């Protein structure tokens, strides 16, 4: 039994179960069925690949997506048990130990490791907005990336800047590709990305020694080759012109198209509609909400999640009467709020530590 098989067995995943997973992976990547076997063999090789995961300006949702998608998670296993040499979020080490681990992982695997980054890179104030162990993300990236074999920008923040780069972008956040320009780089956008896309890219790299085919935004074409709309099960309603007008009308109950409720499926390239989420259970549109377009550049500034794609994205032009009425309502609300604040302030009684101790003692 090799190292991977032992780890699989320990987690209750059989050889057949793993082979089955690789077959599914090959199918999702539109590779020939035989590639599933090849992937399983490549992943099972004794020499494991080195993966260094650096978290920058991010929320950890991407890592959560991969490691906690379902149980048992083969995606998580491939990452956590098989490949991961350094991840500040998952590793037990901390402080100087963690810094040493990073240095060692980079030196021992120079030119061979896969560098995964989630989060954008703040460039404002020379990168001071996000630091690890006193070093800016910018410095760290400039030091580590040149020694990597390939760089994977994980999630929309790393791929396109994401929410940190949304207007007014106070930290000067940029995508990884703005800093790393001379390495093979693949973007895996999504907020968060679909777990199997990540393992698919790694498995492809390990099996064939190259990154999968990418689109113009450096996304793997196998997963981002079609729009959500192309594969949406509500597409026939769109074609017939049947649209839900609100989230609780008859159309919504009948499963009609959510285009008029702001669905960004027609302009969003991702695999949610056919790969789905939570162990292939469903995707947002199946839960009754339109696609928010999270795998596209600038999705946060795209004009509002509930604004239909065909509606103007600029500020609405209101009639003069409506503006005057709105202003009057605004003034009334402000006066009411001020009065409420004043009453709250008057009723407020400050408590001291002694008061709290007294109250605590009284309850005993």
């Amino acid at each position, binding site marked *: 039994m090799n190292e991977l098989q032992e780890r699989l067995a320990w987690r209750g995943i059989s050889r*057949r179960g793993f082979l*089955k997973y690789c*077959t599914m992976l090959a199918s999702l990547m539109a590779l020939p069925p*035989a590639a599933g076997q090849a992937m399983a063999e490549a992943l099972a090789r004794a020499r494991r690949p080195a993966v260094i995961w650096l978290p920058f300006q991010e929320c950890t949702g991407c890592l959560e997506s991969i490691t906690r998608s379902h149980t048992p998670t083969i995606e998580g296993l491939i990452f956590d048990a098989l490949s991961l040499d350094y991840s500040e979020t998952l590793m037990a080490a901390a402080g100087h130990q963690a810094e040493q681990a990073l240095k060692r992982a980079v030196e021992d695997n120079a030119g061979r490791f896969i560098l995964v980054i989630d989060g954008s890179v703040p460039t404002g104030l020379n990168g001071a907005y996000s630091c690890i162990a006193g070093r800016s993300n910018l410095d760290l990236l400039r030091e580590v990336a040149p020694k990597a074999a390939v760089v994977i920008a994980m999630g929309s923040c790393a791929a396109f800047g994401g929410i940190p780069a949304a207007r007014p972008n106070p930290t000067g956040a940029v995508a990884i590709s703005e800093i790393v320009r001379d390495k093979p780089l693949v973007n895996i956008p999504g907020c968060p990305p679909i777990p199997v896309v990540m393992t698919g890219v790694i498995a492809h790299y390990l099996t064939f020694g190259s990154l999968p085919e990418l689109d113009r935004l450096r996304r793997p074409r196998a997963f981002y080759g079609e729009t959500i709309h192309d594969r949406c099960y509500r597409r026939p309603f769109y074609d017939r012109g049947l649209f839900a007008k609100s989230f609780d009308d008859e159309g919504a109950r009948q499963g009609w198209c959510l285009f008029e409720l702001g669905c960004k499926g027609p302009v969003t390239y991702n695999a949610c509609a056919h790969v789905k989420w939570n*162990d292939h259970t469903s995707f947002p549109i199946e839960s009754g909400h339109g696609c928010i377009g999270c795998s596209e550049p600038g999705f946060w500034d795209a004009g509002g999640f509930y604004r239909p794609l065909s509606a103007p994205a600029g500020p609405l032009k209101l009639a003069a009467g409506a503006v005057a009425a709105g202003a009057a309502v605004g003034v009334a609300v402000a006066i009411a709020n001020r009065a409420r604040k004043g009453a709250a302030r008057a009723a407020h009684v400050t408590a001291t530590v002694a008061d709290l101790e007294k109250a605590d003692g009284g309850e005993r």
Partner: protein
Amino acid sequence: MGLEAIPVVVEPADLAAARAVLRELAVLVERLLATGEGGAIDLGVLPLTPAARAWLIDRLGRGEVEIRLTAGGQSTITETGCAGVWWVRHGNEAGVVTSELLEVAYVPGLVPVSRAEVENGLQRLNSGLDGLN
């Protein structure tokens, strides 16, 4: 005279894809007979409509063997009426079909046990016998 009177029969596109699957299967079966090496067609990436799928199931027919595999969810491997062609459906633990293929082989690839597994089985047998001695 209406257009329907013009004697042109257009084969639906979906049926054309199903016919192509049959042709490719025939090539794979010929190769299996000639070299012992089969192959597989991934149905997940083919644009087969329910009608085309039904047509394909009907043409392939049903064989005698059905194998149920429980590994990371249920899978069923069904012999078609064309010996050597197996319809493989892989499901996950939630019961959702995650991949579907037509495999051409004497025995489907997932079914045989590996040498390491047999060795482990022998160890287990022996440890059971040790307890009896």
